């Protein structure tokens, strides 16, 4: 129906990204103000189970496409079907989780639908029938309130910014199967395969992040193996430091982050970088180990709920943001903290 609120459910290889469910609580709040039904969109291959799950999380109706062309995400077929359906049914709002896939499908869908896009939104309100979206800009150094004058209003929601509703398995809704808009020979990009897909908790989804900085390379008690030059020895030391950081992260079921300085020095791959030119994270607990707190790092983690800083330098700027601080050597404190949590969490 015209005026409905749609939620795009992001999935990877048949499993819904949990941030998709967060969008249903945002949809519910919008529905209270704007009315309409909540409609879930699930595109994939063998994903009828996800369509049913969407009902449990709050969809009144689910439009699902079950087709091999959707087995791997490519923006073109996803956006084409999204736009085709939206032209037919005229929703007022389409919400997406800001995953890599959600952002792209939304961006291209907005082009096809000749409408605006508000990406990476952290709060929504409705004033006089218009949705006002709060978005961090300049990596959260500022906030902007933005709105879109055309329908559908395409909005992607920052992960972990909206509550995840409890699923209700007793809920029922209508599942409607739809057909793809493009056939395989109309799609230029082919997915060959995946690599490095095993690695742990993803930074942007993590409830706990433990990060290391340049300080990870400064353990005076370590003697690097013979035959390394100065740079190699420094990286070797840093690897030992990051091992400690990872052990703490593992005990807390968290992800490992890093400062730009540590990434640029070659201590840890770029995927781990938190900051303005890395990832922006909003965990419940952020533990910064040997990170001084350059403004570009703070921009990536300042909205974490509880921040803990461990640093030798009592004047390090990171302490200003920290609920708890320890002025000390991370090589003493971090292993002791890992041990303390092991006892308390029974691991």
């Amino acid at each position, binding site marked *: 129906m015209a005026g409905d609120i749609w939620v795009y459910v992001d999935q*990877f290889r048949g499993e819904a*990204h949990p941030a998709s469910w967060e969008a249903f609580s945002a949809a519910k709040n919008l529905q209270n103000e704007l009315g309409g039904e909540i409609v879930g969109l699930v595109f994939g291959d063998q994903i009828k189970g996800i369509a049913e799950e969407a009902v449990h999380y709050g969809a009144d109706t689910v439009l699902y496409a079950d087709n091999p062309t959707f087995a791997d995400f*490519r*923006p*073109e077929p996803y956006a084409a079907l999204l736009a085709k359906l939206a032209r037919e049914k005229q929703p007022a709002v389409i919400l997406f989780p800001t995953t890599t*896939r959600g952002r*792209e499908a*939304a*961006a*291209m869908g*907005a*082009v*096809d639908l000749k409408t*605006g896009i*508000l*990406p*990476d939104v952290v709060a929504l309100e409705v004033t006089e029938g218009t949705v006002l979206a709060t*978005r*961090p*800009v*300049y990596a959260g150094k*500022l*906030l*902007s*309130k*933005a*709105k*879109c*004058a055309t329908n559908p209003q395409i909005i992607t929601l920052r992960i972990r910014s909206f509550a995840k509703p409890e699923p209700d398995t007793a809920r029922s809704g209508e599942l409607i199967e739809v057909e793809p808009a493009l056939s395989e020979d109309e799609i*230029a*990009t*082919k*997915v*060959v395969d*995946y690599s490095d*897909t*095993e690695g742990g908790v*993803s930074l942007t989804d993590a*409830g706990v992040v433990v990060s290391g900085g340049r300080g990870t390379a400064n353990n005076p008690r370590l003697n690097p193996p013979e035959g390394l030059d100065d740079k190699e020895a420094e990286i070797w030391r840093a690897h030992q430091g990051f091992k400690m950081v990872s052990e703490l992260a593992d005990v807390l079921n968290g992800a490992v982050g890093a400062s730009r300085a540590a990434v640029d020095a070659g201590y840890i791959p770029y995927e781990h*970088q938190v900051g*303005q*030119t*890395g990832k922006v994270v909003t965990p*419940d*607990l952020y533990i910064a180990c040997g990170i001084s707190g*350059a403004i570009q790092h703070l921009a990536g983690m*300042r909205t974490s709920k*509880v921040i*803990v800083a461990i640093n030798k330098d009592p004047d390090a700027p990171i*302490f200003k*943001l*920290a609920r*708890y*601080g*320890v002025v000390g*050597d991370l090589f003493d*404190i971090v292993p*002791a903290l890992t041990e303390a*949590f092991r006892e308390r*969490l029974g691991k």
Partner: protein
Amino acid sequence: MKIVVCVKQVPDTAAKVVVANGEVTWGDAPLVLNPWDEYAVETALQLVEEHGGDVTVISMGGEDAKEALKHSLAMGSSQAILISDPGIKSADSLVTAHVLAAAIQKVGEVDLALFGKQAIDGDLGVTSSQTARLLGWPAVTLVSTISEVNEAAKSLKAQRSIEEGRQNVSTSLPAVMSVVKDIGEPRYPSFMGIRKASRADIPIWSLADLDVDPPEPSVSWPQLMNPPERKITNEIISGDSPQEIAEKLADKIMEEKVL
């Protein structure tokens, strides 16, 4: 290969950006080439070094955006074009994409249009996908490695960085790509490059030159504000041994109920 790189000029990452009297200010912090776009310029230069061709850098903005273009020229780009027109003052992403798509068409016979992952001011991260859509070219975003460029077959392979790891794809050219940091550290401008860039004549294209009539912007941002002050009580945990400190800290964190 004929490559276009779309770049933006932004305040430096170290800038303290605040809203004062409703206007965004960053004090005397310099305006720089968007850091993500530096990787896109680097990618273009490496591709051209390997496969031949030339790199055209395009930016949309006021006269001051020429600095970002000069930096790109100093790194080794062949030519730069500034798109400037009073008609594109409050452009949203869709307007920007319309203008950039028209500019890429005007450059002509482009094999690859490269973008950074996002601009560090607006943090939208959608311009590459939207430009691709308007051109009707495939979009391959968040690319960390490019391989098997085949100019005759007009194809290449790329590795993308996604939440779950790396996705390996092949696509046809022309294509639009956005790159991430793993693609390679951007080079510093050479002395000769800086001299060449300082003398370069950067043409300015208007909307009329592009023969494009972008849509009215539908997104507006009526309010810009400083984030609310966070009231944080700092508590320094101390003790006689690392174990004692760790025990106290672990107890405090358990009390916060964040685990």
